[in-house]
Every structure is written in C-alpha cells, then in structure tokens.
C-alpha cells in the first residue's frame, strides 16, 4: 500500500477573486490538445478534433484552444488556469467521449486540485451569528447563586429508583396507602 496520501497537501477552500459573488468567471484560460496524426493511441483525440472541437470552442469563447500535432507521441491535454496552475492529462487510447468528459472537467475546475485534500467542506467568514455555544448557555441562572457543596446539585442527574422507593410507591398506590382508598372500603 502506498503512503502517498500521508504526504498529501491539505488546506481549506480557496476561491479565486470571490468567484460567484457577482458573476461566475470560467477559470480555464488555455487548453492545448497534443496528438499524433498517425498513431492509433491518438485516435479518440483525432475523432474529437474532427467532430467536437469547433462546438467546444464556440460554446466557450473565453477559452483559448491550441492544437499541436506531434509525430509518434501520446495524446495529451494540457490546461492552464487563470491562477497560473498547469495540468496535464494523459489521453493515451482515450475514446472521444472520455476526451469530452475530461475537457468538461478542466473547464469547470478553478485550478489544478489533484493531490490537494480539503480539510473542511465549508468556508464561512461568519462562523456564528447567535454567538457560539458555551457550557453556560441555556443553563438555569439560579445555579450561579448555588453554594457548594450543594446536596441537590451534587447528585447524579438520573438516579434509578431504589427498591425502598418503589415499595413506598406501591404502598401509596394501593388502597391501604391512600386516604381515598380507605374511605372507599
């Protein structure tokens, strides 16, 4: 088993320049599709370039798309983000659909977050609005005035009934214990 996860970088949610507060800005700046014109491992990439690339470029005017044919090399997608991150995706033997999926992922990301663990899945600038809980919230203020040692407060919160108490209760419930019961007789 690998121990690579032990050395993962970790941190908190960061959003580039308050993205989404006013409007959403796509963070992918530039994408370079590298492929070979002959090799079978770039076949899916070539298919995508033939059929889907123009649509992709039209639908995303904010993203610069480059094509880079290279002889006898594996197909690769290289993406650059507005925050300077760079990400390579090895597309050897990828089908056209897989390429579309990975391109969409690159498009909707805000940077290269592979190998980055989020410690919290929530970021807030206002952690508490009604005030954080303390041991004294919702407590009876009368307890402030209690003088210790206090017999009542020192008792456990939930005491089980003792046998004597149960007997007493039984007696009280029976006709012998209650004055009404006696009268009824």
């Amino acid at each position, binding site marked *: *088993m*690998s121990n690579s*996860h032990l050395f*993962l970088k970790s941190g908190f*949610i960061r*959003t580039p320049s308050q*993205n*989404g*507060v006013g409007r*959403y800005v*796509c*963070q992918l700046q530039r994408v370079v599709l590298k492929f070979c014109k002959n090799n079978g491992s770039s076949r899916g990439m070539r298919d995508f370039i033939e059929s889907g690339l123009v649509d992709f470029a039209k639908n995303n005017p904010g993203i610069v798309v480059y094509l880079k044919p290279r002889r006898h090399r594996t197909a690769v997608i290289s993406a650059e983000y507005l925050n300077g991150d760079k990400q390579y995706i090895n597309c050897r033997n990828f089908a056209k659909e897989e390429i579309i999926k990975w391109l969409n*992922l690159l*498009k*909707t*990301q*805000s940077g290269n*977050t*592979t*190998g*980055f*663990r*989020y410690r919290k*899945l*929530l*970021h*807030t*600038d*206002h952690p508490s*609005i*009604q*005030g954080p809980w303390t041991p004294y919230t919702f407590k*009876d203020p009368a307890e402030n005035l209690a003088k210790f040692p206090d*017999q*009542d407060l020192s*008792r456990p*919160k*939930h*005491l089980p*009934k003792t046998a004597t*108490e149960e007997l007493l209760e039984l007696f009280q419930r029976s006709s012998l214990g209650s004055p009404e019961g006696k009268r009824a007789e």
Partner: protein
Amino acid sequence: MAGVVRRIFANLPRINTCNYVKTPLLSILPSVTSKFYSNVPTPYEIVDAQEDRKTYQGVIDNVNRQVAEKKQGRLFAVVHVAGKQVKITEGDVFIVEGYWPPDAGDKISLDKVLLVGASDFTLIGRPLVQRGLVRVEATVIEKNVSHTKTHFRKKRRKQYMRINFYRTPRTMVRVNRIEIVGEVNHPPAVTGLETRIF
C-alpha cells in the same frame, strides 16, 4: 426523590407562561423508561388556546416587524442539499459531494430550508419552513473531483487483498443571498405554484 424530579424538569425546556400546565411526571416517565419511543409530545399541555395564541402572536409580530424594518441583521439558514444538511450564511462556500447535476455557473435556489435564524430569532421548520418564506440563492462555482482516495482491504492469512482507487465528484457552491420574503405564520392562500410550469 423530589430532588430527582426537579432535576429532570430542569432539563426540559422552560416556558414561563401560566397557560401551560405541567402534566404529572409519573405519566411521562414509565413511557420513557419502558418503551423505546414515546408518543408523549411534550410535558406541557395547552389549557387555554386563546391565551396561548395571544402569547405566541406577540413573538411572531415582533419577528415580522423586525423583518419589515430590515433590522434583523445577518441571516443564517440550514438547508438540505443532496441528502445532507448545511448551515450557511451569505457569502459562504460549501462543497456538495457525489454526483449532483448542476453545472458550473448555474444559479440555483435552495428550497429545502429547515431553519432560518438571525441574532434575535430562529424560525424552525417542521421539518421545512413554510414554502416561499425564505429565499436562498446560490451559484455553482466549481465542479471537480476530489484527490485520489485509497480503498484498501486485506484479510490476514487468507491470501486476500484488494486495492481500489477512486475520486468522488465535488461541486462547490457559493451562497449569494438569504432573505425572508414572506410573512411568518401567514402563508399565502395558494402555495406550491411558484415552481409549477403550466
């Protein structure tokens, strides 16, 4: 014994109005101790409905007045998103894990609001607050996948070992606005039409 009874009552919510009557504790306790659940909703029962309404109407009026004058300050809400509950306030970013259809850049409104609160009041839904009372708007700002997680299983001395790697889809959502648009305890006569398409 008397001490015990008092301690148990101290743990129950206190309502200091005279139109509530404490039901005898013995009628509650056996149900708590002998069964796994209890149908007894509360140890208080309403004696005078009119009097009771007068008490809570004052509270609700105060809340409505605060909202109308926009003096409630910052609001927070607990919303139900993709099977989980999140406590959010304006400007927060939270992550939804797992497959979730909204795409990056989508503006969505979170309708399953379980609770809304300001510094002075809290509106608790049963389980949701009344539809159309609160508007929570959010923007999807990022969709990516988590870091690679390892799922490793091994049984000792059984020649059994499996290792799986997986990455879960994640969606980052920014909360744009939380506001109370309706009137508390005064729902419109017809509800549920906001989202219908005729």
